[in-house]
């Protein structure tokens, strides 16, 4: 037998969506931040572990990666934060037209970034199977490319969704706001990796 109940209050007036840490989606994304952030941190740790075993960095006879493509990608990625922030604000004031516009701009910039991103693999001046240095540099780049493509695909699907009748649901705006937060994480993760791949070999060599 279960206990008889005593009513102490009613929840019907509560809202059915909320932004930020009031939303379940936000917590799910924080969980993925922690997982992916730990993965990146450990890969960076592996980079330094391998670096500690070398006499020079990059190890002779390899030269540091050419930084042009990576730098162009980085500049575009940082610039994409402008429409991303505008999209997040539009989502939080539930302005569908503005949200659609800014998300389309973010998507267009993602497409543009594909070009320098692809060229980065040709700029490393080392192959993954040359030595451990090549392996870890390729791994860092590969991990971030996966990260970037995943959120690009996510943003593209969300943008498409916002042009259907599902855009009427308030939780789509919550999704858009959390997606913008995820994009920030994508470029935040890239900055240390960019320094490790392109600049640290120059600074210590």
């Amino acid at each position, binding site marked *: 037998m279960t206990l008889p109940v005593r009513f102490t209050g009613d929840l019907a007036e509560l809202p059915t969506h909320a932004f930020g840490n009031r939303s379940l989606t936000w917590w799910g994304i924080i969980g993925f931040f922690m997982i992916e952030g*730990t993965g990146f941190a450990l890969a960076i740790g592996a980079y330094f572990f391998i670096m500690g075993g070398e006499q020079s960095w990059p190890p002779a006879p390899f030269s540091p990666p050419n930084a042009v493509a990576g730098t162009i990608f980085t500049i575009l990625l940082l610039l994409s934060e402008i429409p991303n922030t505008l999209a997040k604000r539009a989502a939080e004031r539930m302005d569908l037209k503005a949200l659609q516009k800014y998300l389309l701009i973010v998507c267009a910039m993602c497409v543009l970034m594909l070009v320098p991103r692809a060229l980065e693999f040709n700029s490393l001046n080392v192959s993954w*199977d040359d030595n451990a240095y090549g392996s870890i540099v390729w791994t860092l780049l590969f991990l971030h490319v996966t990260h970037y493509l995943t959120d690009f695909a996510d943003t593209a699907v969300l943008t498409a969704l916002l042009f259907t009748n599902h855009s009427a649901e308030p939780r789509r705006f919550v999704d858009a706001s959390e997606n913008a937060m995820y994009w920030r994480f994508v470029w935040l993760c890239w900055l240390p990796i960019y320094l490790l791949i392109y600049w640290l070999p120059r600074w210590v060599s």
Partner: protein
Amino acid sequence: MNALPDLPRDGEQLQGPALEARLARTWSDAPGLWGFLTTVDHKRIARRYIVTALCFMALAGFSALWMRLQLAKPENSMMGPDRYNQLFTMHGTTMMFLFAVPVMEAVGVYLIPLMIGTRNLSFPRLNAFSYWMYLAGGIMIWLAFFLNIGPDAGWFSYTPLSGPQFSPGKRVDIWAQMITFTEVAGLAVATVTVASILKQRAPGMTLARMPIFVWTMLVTAFMIIFSLPSVALASGMLICDRLIGTHFFNAAEHGSPLLWQHLFWFFGHPEVYIIFLPGAAFVSEIVATFSRRPVFGYPAVVMSVVATALLAFGLWVHHMFATGLPRLGYAFYTAASMTVAIPSGIQIFCWIATMWDGRPRFQVPLLWVVGFIVTFVIGGLSGVMLASVPIDLQVHDTYFVVAHFHYVLIGGAVFPLLGAFTYWFPKFTGRMMDEGLGKIAFWTIFIAFQVTFFPMHFLGIMGMPRRVYTYPTGMGWDALNLLSTLGAFVLGAGFVLFLVNGIFSSRRGAIAGANPWDAAGLEWATASPPPQYNFPHIPVVFSRTPLWDNRNHLPVMTGLRVDDRELLLTTVMEAKPDVRDPSAMPSPWPLWAALATTCLFVCSIFTPWAVVIGTLPVAAALIGWFWPKTPPKAEPVIE
């Protein structure tokens, strides 16, 4: 009742059987196989997780018995080294990755929503996806074993042994990819657990009122989140070394086998606590109920759990004492390894104090707790011995270590798990487990465990190494090995007895009410077994022991939708009602996504192009999963 059939929310006008019928309609799965494949009910998923984990435990147990049979006498020719290598690899891998972690998470998946008073976990489809991934990984590795291509480089697959030079073929790749499957599953459940515990607690269940079980599962989930990426990264690197010629662990090209050990043990040591802490969680609940008082020193126990988790990430190098470390490294990791005994000790003293100050009823669940305390303390003492570098170097890779970790893992996790099965069996099935059979199973397993593993301390001190398929006569190891083998078979019989009791009791056991043990937690406020929606109304909590505070009624809140799946989100610290959030309907997409991911993972054992091509079906399945299937519905007007 018939005059109010369409009320969209529960309340004073919609309660009792009418409400339950409405909720059952909304929260039920489709009938038959389709319902089985598409369910997102945390209880169904947890049950199948537990059954699957027990099947894997049985397979790993048979592997152990087979090994013990081989070691029963010296120079035994029953099997050769290759079979033996596969067996100890499969035994360790299965017990750690396919039994211990999943079964602990699964008990949490079943109980956490009931303990925090919610209708389902957060992200229920992710939870369903995690099970299918786990199942696929387990089936893959055991199929490989049955095809005689089982992994054979040990459960930690040390490089360079596991590298392309010394382990040609696909055995190690299968091991490494099984790791990826279980990591995806484990991380998914951990994320679901954290979000559920922080956002879905019943109104009034502040962090300070959370059951210790829930605290511990929260801490464990964080440990999973911060440790599993390490082994996922390591196994990914290992596959790359083997498949596409990277050199992470190849010393000839300036990689390092020690990098593997660091990454593996950065995961591997917290893993031990990921297995032990849920055991401690079960113990805290059982001790309180059977001592008929709340756990002594609630803040001390919670802080100990948190401290254990933090310290667990600072110990991994003690698995590497024999690799040659800087002196400071020895000193630091010895100190850290000894320090972790302190929070474990605090918990044990709190449990003993609870029993001391309470009125203990020595029924079967509490017997398992007592068995746990005795066995775990012995394992803890040998652990403190091993933390000392000179002793560690002396007994490294001997049976002393085998004895130690079986004492802490079986004593620290399996005994509490068996206690937990007995304790929550009435909630799972609606029936009580047989007390007499339960006591016989307890004493059989407890005594047989000591007979099996205690002699291994002596074998290790006498120098018997681990992972040898046989040993010569005249070493003085014969009698102790035979004793250990005899103990192992009795231990196996004890587990069979426990299982028989479970099967028998689930059909013929005495009918249990909602709260047969007179326990204090919210999970005992709902029917046994719970309905699909867990609680007809959302319970409200005013203390850590809600059912002991008021034995006459359950305070509840009303107003959640009954015509649509809806959960209550509360604030993180104070658990104040905040948002009504929709909960996912059953869906086949987690299964399709898991199948697509399985194809990607399995094919990537053979070609790196699978990672590129296989991404497309995975992406398609994920888009199908997330794309809304029903047109938007308007919110019903509040009456």
